């Protein structure tokens, strides 16, 4: 196998015409395909966001929260933290935090 040039690593968006995913795979598809990140940057961003987001909610004394959990009316983790985490990745990739998913009609790498 050829070795990878560390200063200019190949990017999946230059090799794949279409990338799809659900949940974790969906986030990765966005990072690789829409934000055109290389693998290293994507791993780094995923490690950071999963660390930030998957902190269990403090629910020991949170009776309302526990009742909500029992009724399954809200998720187990903080949705706002996930929103901010994604926005930070978008900004790090050089775009506005409210940047649209679709900015071109026919992008080279579809997500």
């Amino acid at each position, binding site marked *: 196998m050829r070795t990878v040039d560390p200063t200019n690593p190949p990017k999946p968006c230059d090799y794949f015409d279409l990338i*799809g995913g*659900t949940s974790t795979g969906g*986030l990765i598809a966005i990072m690789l395909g829409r934000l055109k990140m290389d693998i290293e940057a994507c791993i780094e961003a995923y490690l950071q966001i999963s660390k930030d987001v*998957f902190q269990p909610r403090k629910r020991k004394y949170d009776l309302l929260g526990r009742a909500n959990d029992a009724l399954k009316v809200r998720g187990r983790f903080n949705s706002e933290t*996930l929103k901010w985490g994604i926005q930070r990745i*978008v900004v790090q990739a050089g775009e506005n*935090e409210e940047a649209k998913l*679709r900015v071109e*009609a026919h992008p080279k790498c579809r997500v």
Partner: protein
Amino acid sequence: MGLHTALLRNYDSSRPEGFDCAIWEAGRATSAASSFFDPIQIGRFQETFVDGGTGCNNPVDKVFEEALEIWGERARERINCFLSIGTGQPAERGFGNGLKEIASTVIHISTETEQTAARFARVNAPSIGAAPKREKIYFRFNVAKGLEETGLERHEDMAKIAAATKVYLSSPQISDDLIACAGALRSYCM
């Protein structure tokens, strides 16, 4: 309200069900599929994205349908490489005594994704690639052992995930597949 699988795209589609959303909204909506996060409303009509009861946790069929929608039937013979990556295979039934501790959703989702992968390999994968087919085009990589009890929330288990992945990738069959997959991608760029 009918539940169905929605596709969020960064491109124009001839399909009617488009969503104009921010990147973060798309990320939130797809993550709601895990049931770990609150449902979210996005798009002009504020449609709700909820957890993955719709059973599309392995989107391989959706991606293939979408490729056919974009490039037409000729996509079948023009695809050089179709790569599918999983998040760990489920434990076999009746294995060990730790099963009780595993969230039932983890088992359910990983079982469903593997069934979908097996069906795709059987039904659709043989139709991909230009005839006469000499090379493998569809690749599925999914760590076989060691991640049975690791849900996507287990960020503290990264070392374990990395170790299990390295063991999997260094097995003879899989490392051959990796080289073949890299070859398929390289041929695309030349």
